[in-house]
């Protein structure tokens, strides 16, 4: 059995957005009890991560680390049509994930207690981000 659905999120600046609830809702809607939920982000300047969900400073620290690893406006980068955060956003995306697969058990996303699914916006502006969710199972 296959269930596929598109989700659209609005982001408001660089940072992580918890989308675990929306993904759970799609799994519930699919009525699939056991299988795989595949999440795909259709952009190259925003990505997906599984991250700890208890302390929000973990995610702000991750962003701070990325900022140090891939500095905005780095002279290495020539692709800056859309500003100093343009090319770093593409590199950040490659360093994280465009696709996540999580297990579906007993009709629920079988994540760890302290795990959350996050959309990571790497651009500093506001964007609409499209995700494709495919659940395969029985």
């Amino acid at each position, binding site marked *: 059995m*296959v269930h*596929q659905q598109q989700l659209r999120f609005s982001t408001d600046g660089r940072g992580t957005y918890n989308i675990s609830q929306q993904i759970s809702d799609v799994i519930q809607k699919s009525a699939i009890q056991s299988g795989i939920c595949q999440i*795909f982000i259709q952009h190259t300047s925003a990505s997906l991560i599984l991250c700890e969900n208890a302390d929000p400073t973990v995610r702000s620290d991750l962003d701070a680390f990325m900022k140090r690893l*891939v500095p905005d406006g780095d002279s290495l980068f*020539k692709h800056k049509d859309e500003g100093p955060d343009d090319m770093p956003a*593409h590199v950040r995306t*490659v360093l994280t994930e*465009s696709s996540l697969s999580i297990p579906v058990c007993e009709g629920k996303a079988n994540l760890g207690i302290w795990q959350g699914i996050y959309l990571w916006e790497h651009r500093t502006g506001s964007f609409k981000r499209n995700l494709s969710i495919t659940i*395969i199972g029985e």
Partner: protein
Amino acid sequence: MLYQNTLQLAEHSQGAYEITDLISTIITESKIHTGTCHLFIHNSSSAILISDTADDSTKDMTADFMAQLAPSSTDANENINNAMNAVPPTMKHARSQSELTIPITNGRPGIGVWQGIFLWEYKSSPVERKLTVTIMGEAKHKSFRLTR
């Protein structure tokens, strides 16, 4: 429904090579309309990545960044060079991806308008690569007419 195909990719030297059309062809062959397509590369010094297709400099810049993160040796001694050349590709590989799953929507890769699927070869000397494509999902339910 499941379809699997293992293919040999032609020799490529260091760089990013778009394989979106190749993957689209395999998806068409599979006749799967809705599902997922899993790509797996059988080695540890190249990767499968999604990258921007709008501006060629995007993937070049990403490659430059990766080169800075795990630089290759420029030593002239061939033996040392071979050994040194082997380490950075593995490090780059560890931080990129050996496998990628994309959705299949309407019998096509369900990726974004500006996204492309790329083979990233990290070795400087040309190497042949093996790729396994596994497609799972449902074929389109064909509408049919009742004939007497």
